[in-house]
């Protein structure tokens, strides 16, 4: 019985780590800018579309000069897609940060509303460029398909996604905790005025952190694309579990987000194994259960954002 559930468990881990990646990007932005970025889902979608352009001729530019590029083997194109998708999300994110500058110091509600408007705009632009139909992101054959181990079928891509996401999370942790840049970002989250007083350019710091957080959403979008497909509204499906992960893990806690992500992913995947239609409800029940007893989530601390 337990043995049969292993493939579901792996799906859950892959899903959960991707939710955690989204949540971590979101929290970086909250930490330094004190902005709830409701456009995070739209940036996720943008990353996925960026990758589609670099991978699939039918979702890409139908121009003559692009043809030699599309003739390249799949792996280099996939690597480029993995760079271009997050880059696109990151650049748009930086643009959004420039718009957000006017709301700093005002009621945090305005930042939240501005990003909500931006989400609407990004989604409509995506519709305008790519239409409303669904795209599929092809992957190199090395990481697609499935294999049989024991007497169960495993999806290669899900295992790849789980490994990729855990590597990303590990690198992010190293970046935040073992490099001077990470130290500045964490200090900015703690007290941005003090960081400025120490001579760091706060404007540039905010721009880069927003871009970085957006790029993390883009990465999650590219990795998720072959699993969920690429539609203009796919971001909403991804960002809501990420919000649940944030509340569950507690705002501002790195390992809180990762463990909450794993919990959500595994609970959703295991419920899906028995009750496909109701799988997402289990996530919300988990949320209600946890916040009833721990109002700031598993590892959250009191923060300025509650004011």
């Amino acid at each position, binding site marked *: 019985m337990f043995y049969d559930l292993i493939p579901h468990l792996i799906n859950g881990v892959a899903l959960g780590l991707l939710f955690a990646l989204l949540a971590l990007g979101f929290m970086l932005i*909250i930490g330094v800018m004190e902005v*709830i970025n*409701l456009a995070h889902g739209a940036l996720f979608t943008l990353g996925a579309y960026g990758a589609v352009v670099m991978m699939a001729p039918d979702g890409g530019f139908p121009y003559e000069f692009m043809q030699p590029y599309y003739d390249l083997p799949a792996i280099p194109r996939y690597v480029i897609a993995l760079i271009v998708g997050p880059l696109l999300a990151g650049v748009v994110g930086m643009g959004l940060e420039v*718009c957000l500058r*006017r*709301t700093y110091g*005002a*009621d*945090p*509600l*305005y930042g*939240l*509303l*501005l990003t*909500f*408007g*931006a989400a*609407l*705009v990004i989604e*409509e*632009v995506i*519709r*305008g460029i790519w239409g409303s139909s669904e795209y599929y992101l092809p992957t190199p054959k090395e990481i697609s398909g499935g294999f049989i181990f024991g007497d169960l079928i495993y999806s290669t891509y899900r295992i790849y996604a789980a490994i990729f996401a855990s590597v990303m999370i590990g690198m992010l942790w190293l970046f935040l905790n073992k490099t001077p840049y990470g130290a500045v970002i964490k200090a900015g989250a703690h007290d941005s005025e003090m960081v400025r007083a120490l001579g760091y350019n706060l404007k540039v710091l905010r721009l880069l952190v927003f871009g970085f957080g957006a790029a993390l959403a883009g990465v999650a979008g590219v990795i998720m694309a072959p699993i969920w497909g690429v539609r203009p509204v796919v971001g*909403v499906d991804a960002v*809501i579990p990420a*919000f*649940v992960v*944030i*509340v569950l893990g507690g*705002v501002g806690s790195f390992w809180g987000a990762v463990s909450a992500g794993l919990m959500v992913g595994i609970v959703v995947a295991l419920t899906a194994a028995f009750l496909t*239609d*109701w799988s*997402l*409800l289990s996530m*919300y029940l988990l*949320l*209600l259960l946890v*916040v*009833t007893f721990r*109002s*700031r989530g598993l590892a959250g601390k009191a923060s300025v*954002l*509650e*004011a």
Partner: protein
Amino acid sequence: MDYPTKQTKAWVTPQIVVAIVLFGTMPLWIEAVGLYQYLGVEVIIWMIFALGYNLLLGYTGLPSFGHGAFFGIGAYAYGLAQFEVWPNLWFCLAAAVVVTAAFGAATALFLSHRRGIYFALMSIAFGQIFFFIASKWTDVTGGEDGLLDIQRLPVEFGAMSLSTRSNVELYYLCFALFCVLVILLWRLTNSPYGRVLRAIKQNEMRVSFIGYKVSVIKWSVFTLSTAIAGLAGGLFAMAQEGAYINIMSLQWSGTIVLMVLIGGGFVSFWGPVLGVILYFVARDVLGAYTEAWLLWFGLMFMLLVMFKPEGLAGMWRDLLGTLVTRKAEPKGNPAKVEG
């Protein structure tokens, strides 16, 4: 930047009279300005929804991103009450209000201790829970197809019975409810209770130091605003002659926020009314030229948040302010609204 600090004891103000005259005559001139009667029905229902929502967003400063769910619950409750219990207008509308308020009150238990980001994210989660259940529980809600064949029930007063079948007749039913609601909400927001709401928006902790039970007040205002959302939802089910899942989505929950803010719900009682009108007129006018009208509306919204977060009502007040200062002596600034 805030609502005028002066409180009034009046039940009816000049603005309310203007609104009643304007909306009371709307069916007479709406076609003359190139629009259509059904739009008037939509506008007045959404105004009811928006006025109730602004109690939460504008007055108390609680950004609920799941309010569309309550609007939807009201619509379903109206439909189910009519199909399963008693097809009487007053009963069905009351059912819509009571059922929605019950769901709202239960939700508010989880939300009333929260603020800021936790409030916003939890409200999204609750909105999604209701959306999700409504979309999957097909036996009750009809799932993706929705509840069809909801009737526009007649208004019954004893032996008298008024039809609401045509759009104009339905409009006047909604208008009557709108008038009652506007006066009640006007009194409420100018009452001591309204003052406490505004104080909570400014500094929750200080309000609790004074001795108010902040979470009880937040619970009550959330429940009240969901009850109004339920009323609007019930009317919307009549207007659409059906109840559909899409109004419960995150997209629509966000749209109500957008309407309220764009109209200036943060600085004026009338902000939500202006915002709803702007939204629906923009939808019809811009929508006639381009399919991507939401793109332009979204851009307009972003610019407004960046440069004029007080919205239409704020612009109007600035306009009045410049006119007044031009007349008044130059040294004072009498038009400036006290924060």
